[in-house]
């Protein structure tokens, strides 16, 4: 058959299909709330979506509002020439300070100024720590969750405000009382745990390391936290126990399990590293925490939120159980996503009054965990998740997915994903007769 003939045949089929569909489209858009999460609380997101994103909600870590925090922000701006670029800087700052306080508490200072730090004692000190930080009172439980889980729901209403504007526009704060269970309890160390000490000669620096995502699409997430750590060091005058205090290794976790492993091994090879502030991404955190734990190195993360790293089941009847990827000596000052999912769900049902939701994740362990937590809590509050679907992280055309969202009749779309996928969803929502609520 001649080529052009086949093509014409193809066109005819196409036309017939279009006609067969028939039906008039709705003229009015179907109103829907849009809610993202901390992955999109990045400076560049707001620059990219502009007006289209107005009215959107975000769940994320509660930003402290104390005087100490505004001092911190001023220091940040002075040192780096811009405001905070993501939302976890304060948690990294608190993590670093917890480490410094613990070092001061357990270090043995000898007559000539040599400092000896017993690794296990350091870790045990964190388990029994109560620390007043920028983000509130930090008390670690036996699972490693140290943050008092404060989740805030923010809203984007100020077009010029950027991410700072959003972070200061809090709609509601959820202060889940940290369950008292397990606080101050030191879990049993793994069998055969013997990890020795770090000896720091007089004049030599006390070294810590960061393992954060400092390259790639999520570079803001990691860089923001490294800066928090650097400010913490500055605030101590760069010294601790009369030794210089140094961030001597700044490793990249590549937001992936291989990156986390390689970075962790690099750190382990340096026997002078006392503690690690990291990782950025939970996917990197799983293997990194395991490796660092085996080497006896204290790890505190300012942004890992996947429940499996510490404990799951905070809202279940039996209470929290040790997470599958729990490691001795791994802590975090960021919230556990079970709380974030619950906060998002509670806000949606109580404040926005919706009962039918659609969720979209992007195949990343953090986003998938979060939509799962949301879905579970949403059901508990009497709602229903009509469509729980996913898109590819590199996907550009979201319209078919959004059509399904429209078809499901959802009143809220919860999509805790990252750029650029998140941007496409916001930009294309109106194309499919969805009317994101912006008032």
């Amino acid at each position, binding site marked *: 058959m001649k*080529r*052009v003939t*086949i*093509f014409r045949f*193809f066109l005819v089929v*196409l036309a017939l*299909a*279009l006609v*067969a*569909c*028939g*039906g*008039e*489209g*709705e003229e009015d858009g179907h109103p829907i709330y849009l809610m993202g999460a901390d992955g999109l609380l990045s400076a*560049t997101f707001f*620059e*990219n*979506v*502009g*007006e*289209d994103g107005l009215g959107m909600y975000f769940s994320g870590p509660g930003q402290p509002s104390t005087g100490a925090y505004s001092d911190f922000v001023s220091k940040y701006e002075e040192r780096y020439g811009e405001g905070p670029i993501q939302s976890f800087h304060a948690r990294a700052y608190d993590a670093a300070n917890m480490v410094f306080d613990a070092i001061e508490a357990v270090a043995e200072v000898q007559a000539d100024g040599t400092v000896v730090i017993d690794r296990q004692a350091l870790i045990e000190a964190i388990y029994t720590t109560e620390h007043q930080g920028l983000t509130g009172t930090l008390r670690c439980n036996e699972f490693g969750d140290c943050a008092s889980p404060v989740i805030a729901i923010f809203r984007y209403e100020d077009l010029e405000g950027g991410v700072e504007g959003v972070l200061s526009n809090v709609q509601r704060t959820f202060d889940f009382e940290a369950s008292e269970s397990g606080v101050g309890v030191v879990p049993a160390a793994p069998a055969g745990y013997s990890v020795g000490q770090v000896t720091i000669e007089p004049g030599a620096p006390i070294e810590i390391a960061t393992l954060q995502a400092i390259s*790639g*699409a999520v*570079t803001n997430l990691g860089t923001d936290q490294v800066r928090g750590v650097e400010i913490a060091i500055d605030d101590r005058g760069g010294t601790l126990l009369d030794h210089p205090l140094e961030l001597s290794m700044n490793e990249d976790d590549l937001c992936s399990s291989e990156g986390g492993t390689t970075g962790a091994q690099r750190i382990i090879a340096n026997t002078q590293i006392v503690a690690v502030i990291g990782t950025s991404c939970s996917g990197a955190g799983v293997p990194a925490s395991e490796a660092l734990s085996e080497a006896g190195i204290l790890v505190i993360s300012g942004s890992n939120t996947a429940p499996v790293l510490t404990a799951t089941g905070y809202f279940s009847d039996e209470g929290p159980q040790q997470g599958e990827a729990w490691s001795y000596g791994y802590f975090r000052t960021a919230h556990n996503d079970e709380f974030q999912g619950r906060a998002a769900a509670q806000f949606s049902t109580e404040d926005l009054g919706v009962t039918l939701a659609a969720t979209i994740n992007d*195949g990343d362990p953090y986003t998938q965990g979060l939509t799962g937590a949301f879905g579970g809590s949403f059901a508990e509050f009497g709602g229903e998740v009509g469509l*729980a*679907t*996913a*898109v*590819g992280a*590199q*996907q*550009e*055309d979201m*319209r*078919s*997915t959004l*059509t*399904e969202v*429209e*078809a499901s009749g959802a009143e809220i779309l919860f999509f805790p994903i990252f*750029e*650029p996928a998140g*941007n*496409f969803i916001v*930009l294309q929502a109106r*194309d*499919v*007769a969805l009317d994101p609520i912006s008032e």
Partner: protein
Amino acid sequence: MASLTEIVRNRFNTERINWITIVFWAIGIISIVLIAWGSFNSITSGRLTGAQWRDLIVFGLAQGGVYSLIALGYTMVYGVLGFINFAHGEVFMSGAMVGFFAADALNSAGLWNNQPLLSLLIVLMVSMITSTFVAVLLERVAYRRLRNAPRLIPLITSIGASFFLQYTFRGLFGAGINSYPRMAALEGFINIFGLRILRSQALVIVAAVVMLIGLYLFVERTKAGKTLRAVAEDKEIAALMGINVDRAIVLTFAVGGAMAGAGALLYSLVFRQVYFFTGFFPGIKAFTSAVLGGIGNIVGAMTGGLTLGILETLGPSLVLAGFDIPAFTQLKDVVAFLALVLVLILRPTGILGERLSEERG
């Protein structure tokens, strides 16, 4: 009365029917059955209204339009030189990125929304010139000397060129995502025959069709086009006939690049976000379209592009949803690639068949 085996043999040009042929037939039949069953379930479940199905088809067409334009570059180069130019996705991306700077500048100068037609034309020129330049540069630097090398070599060169361009753009312009400014003139919908289409998508479909017709006429009716076809047929004989083969090949790359540049602008209007990685997946999809439609011919690129666009957009909602697969929208690429595999199994030369003669294999 020819026996069944002889009919089948003649139809498929194979010497023997063996288990492979049977397997392929089985795959084909099972696939068709599954597709029909899934579609039936989806449609009858009433999950989507007729209007929504129609919308999906239109979205697919717009997406396909962009793929078609990019696919042209692939198909023309393959037709003339016989290898996949992996870096063509980056030719597309370069047009989109540089076009962004032009659009941004126009926006700052207030022209973007006040003079939409002029702005679009300017950005179109910028985009097309950039893409053409990159394509021609590629040919000159990387591919010219490899004309007679075994086929694998220029292919690998093109993979290298693809990465080099991607990371060059990343290094020069950063890894951040750049957003084209909104154009008020393209907001909202337009009504054609009772169909409600986005204005930007209507523009894409119309522009793609116009460009393709233009290109088709160019290749079939003009003298330069005839040169290209001659060179595609047989380089050596064409040279003997007095055709400057080098110039013809440069022209091929240039035209393919220009089409990609136009596609870049259309893509940017529909999707608005571009960054250094923007060309990678559309490039792969575009090449898939070219193969799907039958590589080496222009009508094939268009057919393949539109088909792939529709399959991708409609496929999961139509077929996969019918089997109650959770999160079926995640699997649109799976549908696209499976479609490619199926088509190539059942019709190895693509839907419209190849332009090249069989012996060139």
